């Protein structure tokens, strides 16, 4: 095994372990990220497989193929993050609005 394979494996295992510690019962996400981790470990240990697969998909190098899928994956993560932030923003807006509506100053009692 080469040095880079060891480093990448350590990185994947660390990320996956950190994810497991914070997963909080989101089972679908658990399955999804487990598959991603398995795939990553597989391609790290057998890099030639990625090259074979790449050529079948019309890509020159295995690492390029992995790079393209990584971009897609990050796009998916960004979208999820955006939606999560939107949800939080909506909850915050609802709380602030409720407070404003509960403390209206009416014409007859405004100074």
């Amino acid at each position, binding site marked *: 095994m080469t040095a880079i394979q060891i480093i990448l494996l350590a990185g994947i295992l660390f990320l996956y372990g950190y994810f497991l510690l914070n997963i909080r019962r989101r089972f679908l996400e658990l399955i999804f990220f487990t598959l991603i981790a398995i795939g990553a470990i597989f391609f790290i240990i057998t890099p030639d497989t990625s090259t074979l697969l790449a050529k079948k998909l019309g890509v020159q190098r295995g690492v390029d193929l992995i790079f393209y899928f990584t971009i897609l994956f990050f796009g998916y993560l960004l979208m999820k993050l955006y939606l999560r932030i939107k949800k939080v923003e909506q909850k915050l*807006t609802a709380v*602030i*609005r409720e407070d404003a509506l509960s403390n*209206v*100053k009416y014409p007859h009692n*405004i100074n």
Partner: protein
Amino acid sequence: MTTTATVTNLSFNRNGVFILIPAYNETQVIGKVIQKIKEAGYNNIVVVDDGSSDNLLNFLQKPLYFLKHKKNLGQGAALQTGFSFVKNLNFEYLITFDADGQHDPKNLDILLHEIIVTKADIIFGSRFLSFDNKLPLKKRILLKIARYINFLFTGLLLSDAHNGLRILNKKAVNSINITENGMAHATEFLFEVKLHKLTWKEVPVIIHYSKYSIKKGQRISNSIKILIDLLLYKTSK
């Protein structure tokens, strides 16, 4: 000042009309804005303070209705808070009016007349239909581009969707639900109009640009943010 007006033989009562003013750090001009609205005969004024850092209430001509967001959320959020509040009042029409002094109170009778005569659910004010509104060139170009982007997203072709001057009837106020807190709410408005099959029309309105209002207005960078918000809005619905 009388609260009834007669325009082209139509007499209408301004008592059923509420003016909704979302405001953020507008202490310099809002006092005068409200004074002019009252001089125009409109006394039902609702100010939604969108988390201003100064004590806006001290600068307002009372009596009026006043609501305050504890934190700044955006004009869209302030408008929706106003809508949520006004729904519980005895109103016939609601006019949204900017706090920065750009909107001329002469427009209020124009809008009211138009909604009564046409029986539309919403009348949008437009800077481009007539009147010699001296828009800065950059703003003119930006708004023209925005017009077609809005059309692409909503299918509605307005000459000026980003004008804050609108009048809505009860049906429109009760139907529309703005979830975009920022300036993309103007486009979301059009989505809501289409979704709820609200009838609409545009009328020319008078706008006054000052150094103050231009400084407070939208920058090109804001426009790019609005576009991104719109793209992501579509994906989140």
